[in-house]
């Protein structure tokens, strides 16, 4: 799939470049108002979207569209959204302040001083919205693949350059996002949205995942990265019964990987607790021989963390 994320300095008409690019390439144009409209259709028009939920909401909508369309996404922070997708081109359009003030004078029919004031207001609102949604006030050049200067280039010329880049990189030939990749992305995004209470009206609210420790969260992130579906503590297995046959002790493995029918237990605790957990796993295997379970000991997990380059050690409890 091809996803072109177009953003730019306020007042440099990057929206026009996005629109012309979408028209010329036959891509679907997704703007901020359209995201809000689609979110209303999906989750109900009255649903409040907190700023922090915005990135997940946009990714969810992009993923849905990307199975059938190539997309031009035009909104602040598009360069951060697009990292979830395999074929992306991040375009940023800049222009000197004088040019942008001139554009605002024409577009809003303003005097120069009023246009200048308008520009400052838009910039402040843009910084504030970026900070609230993405935790960053402004983008930097290395976040983009193409940075174009509207001082010397017209919208048509900028569109030519974007079109040429799409052609050179062969992004259009890659096909749309696969339904498996979409399902994985939706799973993650819906999970995050559910934490803000944003769920489709006819769906059951997904239980908030509260991991027992940082290692479990890291492991979940690793599974997400590799698009491996998982469930957190989905089932408890009684492993000890009293004389009347009532369960007196149960074991709840940390993760279940449905694709492999495999339970995974992370043991990142001190030795005495590991011994207790080993006993439970042994009982589980005896009582439920058809259940596949893999134990990940603390050193296994630390090696995994080192291998994947995470800076911090997992929490030791």
């Amino acid at each position, binding site marked *: 799939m091809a996803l072109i994320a177009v953003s730019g300095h306020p007042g440099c008409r990057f929206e026009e470049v996005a629109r012309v690019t979408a028209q010329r390439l036959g891509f679907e144009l997704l703007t901020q108002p359209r995201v809000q409209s689609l979110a209303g259709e999906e989750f109900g028009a009255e649903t409040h979207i907190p700023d922090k939920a915005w990135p997940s909401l946009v990714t969810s909508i992009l993923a849905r569209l990307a199975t059938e369309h190539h997309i031009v996404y035009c909104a602040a922070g598009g360069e951060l959204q697009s990292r979830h997708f395999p074929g992306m081109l991040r375009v940023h359009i800049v222009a000197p302040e004088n040019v942008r003030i001139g554009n605002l004078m024409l577009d809003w029919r303003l005097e120069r001083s009023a246009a200048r004031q308008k520009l400052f207001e838009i910039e402040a609102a843009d910084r504030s919205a970026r900070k609230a949604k993405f935790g960053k006030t402004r983008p930097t050049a290395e976040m983009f693949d193409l940075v174009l200067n509207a001082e010397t280039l017209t919208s048509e010329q900028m569109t030519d350059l974007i079109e040429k880049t799409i052609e050179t990189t062969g992004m259009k030939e890659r096909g749309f996002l696969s339904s498996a990749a979409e399902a994985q992305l939706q799973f993650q995004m819906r999970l995050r949205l559910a934490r803000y209470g944003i769920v489709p009206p006819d769906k059951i609210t997904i239980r908030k995942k509260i991991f027992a420790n940082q290692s479990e969260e890291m492991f979940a992130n690793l599974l997400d*990265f590799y698009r491996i579906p998982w469930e957190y503590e989905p089932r408890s297995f009684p492993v000890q019964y009293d004389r009347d046959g009532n369960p007196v002790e149960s074991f709840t493995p940390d993760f279940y990987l449905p694709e492999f029918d495999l339970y995974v237990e992370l043991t990142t605790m001190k030795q005495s607790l590991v011994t207790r957990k080993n006993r439970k796993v042994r009982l589980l295997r005896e009582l439920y021989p058809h259940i596949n379970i*893999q134990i990940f000991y603390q050193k296994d997990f630390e090696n995994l963390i080192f291998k994947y*380059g995470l800076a911090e050690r997992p929490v030791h409890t």
Partner: protein
Amino acid sequence: MSSALLPGIERILFTEEEIEARIRAVAREISTAYEGRTLKLVGVLKGSIFFLTALARHIEVPVKIDFLGISSFSNKSGAPGLVRIAKDLDESIEGEDVLLVEDIVDTGFTLRYLLQTLAGRAPNSLAVCTFLDRNSRRIVQVPVDYCCFEIPDRFVVGFGLDYNQLYRNLGYVAVMKPEKMI
């Protein structure tokens, strides 16, 4: 590279001589299996390059070479995103006999993703050859057709395997001192 132990290294697991002998043996197996065919070795950047080079030298059927790289789980921006091909193959593998060459297989996560990706590109055959196999850590069951060494559950470096991008150029495989990995 001198075989004297470097700081941070606990002990040598496989010497240069042991590695050379084992690679020759695996290359013989591969040459027999692919007799009469042309083999495309696909190396996974960066860890496999030393192994792939050594292996290719001893394979006796015609060999083509290509590389691919995948995005790293670790990045500076916080959330890891999704695995994707960061450096794709230069040529199509349609109709080719492909041998995916890995430095190490442990959880199987990476290999599973790569096999799924490559299998969709219509190769004639697709097999896996790994320098090291840490089977004890396998979560995802993936087919490993050729393996030079099975290793214990320790963090190893050398012969392409790194710690913080260092130690790849060691001619041997060594176990890292745990206290050096903090």
